[in-house]
């Protein structure tokens, strides 16, 4: 289905939408490697507050980012129902911990809007575009800003 959509409408972008902290976000589906259930993460010492730790993804060490904490949102307290979206970010693989995955959307690129410039809101820097689907506003996450820069961790 996804392939057909791509071929018929090259101007549209496919997004994986999910809920985090009660808000709708989405990422480009091409950067998503897999979606998996939550697992107990091994916490890393001296890590930023939004890094939950690392989990074992079939033999590789996968860092987990608590997206709600990263975006400064109220996290869903029911941790067990959390889902991890494994994404490729600038050559590195990381897991984004979200509340729930919602849908796959094909959005024509002309329906994308730049977010308005509101300096007070911290989350704005993480959002690259906005769109409206069924009356709900979907924020498109700028993945590159989500991971802490490499230099920051290399203390």
């Amino acid at each position: 289905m996804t392939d057909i959509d791509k071929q018929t409408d090259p101007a549209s972008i496919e997004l994986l939408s999910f809920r985090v902290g009660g808000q709708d976000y989405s990422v480009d589906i091409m950067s998503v490697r897999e979606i998996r259930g939550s697992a107990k993460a091994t916490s890393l010492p001296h890590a930023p507050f939004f890094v939950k730790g690392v989990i074992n993804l079939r033999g590789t060490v996968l860092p987990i980012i608590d997206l709600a904490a990263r975006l400064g949102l109220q996290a869903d307290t029911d941790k067990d129902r959390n889902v991890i979206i494994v994404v490729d970010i600038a050559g590195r693989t990381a897991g984004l911990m979200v509340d729930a995955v919602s849908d796959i959307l094909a959005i024509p690129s002309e329906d994308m809007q730049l977010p308005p410039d509101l300096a007070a809101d911290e989350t704005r820097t993480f959002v690259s575009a906005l769109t409206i689907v069924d009356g709900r506003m979907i924020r498109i996450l700028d993945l590159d800003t989500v991971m802490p820069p490499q230099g920051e961790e290399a203390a």
Partner: protein
Amino acid sequence: MSDPMAEIRASFFIECEELLESLQDGLQMMDDGSTDSETINIVFRAVHSIKGGAGAFGLDDLVQFAHRFETAMDEVRSGNFHPDSEAIRLFFTCADILGDLVRAARDDTPPPNDQIAPVLEKLDLLVGVEEEEDEDLDFTPMTLSLDLGDTPPLGLDDAGALADLPPLTFDTPVGKGFIISFKPENALYSSGNEPLYLFRALRDLGDLSVRCDISGLPALASIDPNCGYLSWALTLVTEEPEQAVREVFEFVDGLCALSISPLTDDNSALPAPEPEVTYPEPDVIPEIETKAAEAPVTQPEPAQTAPAQSAKSTGAPTQPRATVRVDLERIDRLVNLVGELVINQAMLSQSVVETGLPPNSPVSTGLEEFLQLTRDIQESVMMIRAQPIKSLFQRMGRIVREASASVNKEVKFHTDGETTEVDKTVIERLADPLTHMIRNAVDHGFETTEDRIASGKPSAGIVTLSAQHRSGRIVIEISDDGAGIDRERVKAKALEKGLIPEDAQLSDGDIDNLLFLPGFSTASEISNLSGRGVGMDVVKSAIQALGGRISISSQQGKGTTFSISLPLTLAVLDGMVVQVAGETLVVPLNAILETLTLTDQDLRQLGPETHVVQIRGGFVPLLDLGAELGYREPETSYVGATVLLIGQEDGNRAALAVDAIEDQRQVVIKGLEGSYGRVPGIAAATILGDGQIALILDPTDLVTQASGRTRVRAFPKALAG
């Protein structure tokens, strides 16, 4: 895809390394007293093959040096010169320089020219006095033509052919004339050369007869006008030396298959049988471009077939076992996959246990077998990465020779167990520490020759380097039969440098271990060999970085033995699994000196927030691992806590408080840096049997980073071990 020439070059250099190795072997055998013609042939053949290959790549420095060396070896081979130990030492030096030249050519670095001239001088002096005839005139390098335009990338076999060139003989008389076989490659024509001019130049040297061999000419329809198909057999009767003939062909060097051989009574009759001998199979010639590398292997002269064959047959014993060259990356991937298999297997076992199946159920027994198989596979895969430690030992042989020459001591080098297989990375990273230790042994370990004779020892000292597998680890021992450690001097030195307190009561072992303290060097005068400020502490930290341990045993007047124990591989690690603040952590076993439970008497408060642990008269700072890693606040009381006593490279110690010790096991190391980044105090991660990730502690980093609650002070008298 890749440059075929670069590929051929690369395989040539790999061949060279192998040849250099057999060269060293041969010389070692000669040094041990072997005068067997086979041994000498091995040495000769190795030098010759390097020269032959180097000629093909236009590596002039290498060719020239190899030629001189070869000439000398030929003297030995033909029985004109019987090398004494002095000569063999010179040959060793030559082999070292040859190796340097090969590496210089490979890495495109300037060759060690300043060393070459004096050695060549000695070589000439050595061999030249025995033989009046100037052997230089017989220089007949093999030129190989590699036509890149049409050549598919050549595989390793072709490079093997390069190196397998049979040696030429140099003992034929000079002066009557030459038989020249000349087969131009296309590149010769395309670079604007013309055989006719070459022949004219030859004619100026003497009486020339030319025979054109047209057997390579295909049918008219299949002729490629851009290809040359002709070859020539020339007979030149001249008084000129071969060098003069060779000069004629100087500019087409590498563009043709050329062989020049002296005209003798046997073959002066004429080149009647020549075409057949040169190209045994005429139909092959049209394909000559693709087989360029093989073409010159055929020997034009019947007179030369005998030595060529003998070289072949004698070469057989040194032929390496059949091997496959595999990209290291692929092996690493396999190692990783097997590591995951082991983890998976452990997870499976655990869940079977959890389901509560009886221990003798078919599932359990099957799993047991699976476990055995997985272990076997893991071991086999690790062995792929392993390679004999021989190459490292040979490098050390050179260090011994150079070191002993520079301090004027006579030292013999023995190796034992050089077929012991060790992980490739371990071998690479052992080179520096071993070099240092060997130099130390030669420089400090041995008495002067006079002292040795005075104390009734043979004048030549012996350094022995041995390797063996011992209970899942590699044990490498470096021993000398020198004076042993002068403990009085070591102690005095340590006092002088303020490394130990005045009243320190030290056992012999403690004193020996002082050598590993930073800033310690026993040589009263700093020789140019060792004692450049890097001491045994650097060696020790290098060994510990490999997960190894080092120990000394020394006997006054008898000698000293350093013993290095290393893990078989760097992919797994022996660790202690501990619990801290609900997290599972792995502490490398080689860093743990001992474990203890704290009592009221052990614990002393130092500052308002810091504690030290009193262990056998020494004070060691106490670190709360959970607090240091930021998992929790420091505990209120540490009485009854379990602590790991950590020993560091610099002799400092620290006591790490943990909640519980769970297990001691081998873990597979998983890097963190690739996926996340460096974490302070953490070396890597591993996956435990339950699928959970556990972090592997980097004790040195942790202790140096430890701050806030406890400050780590160097406690000088604290000694590791």
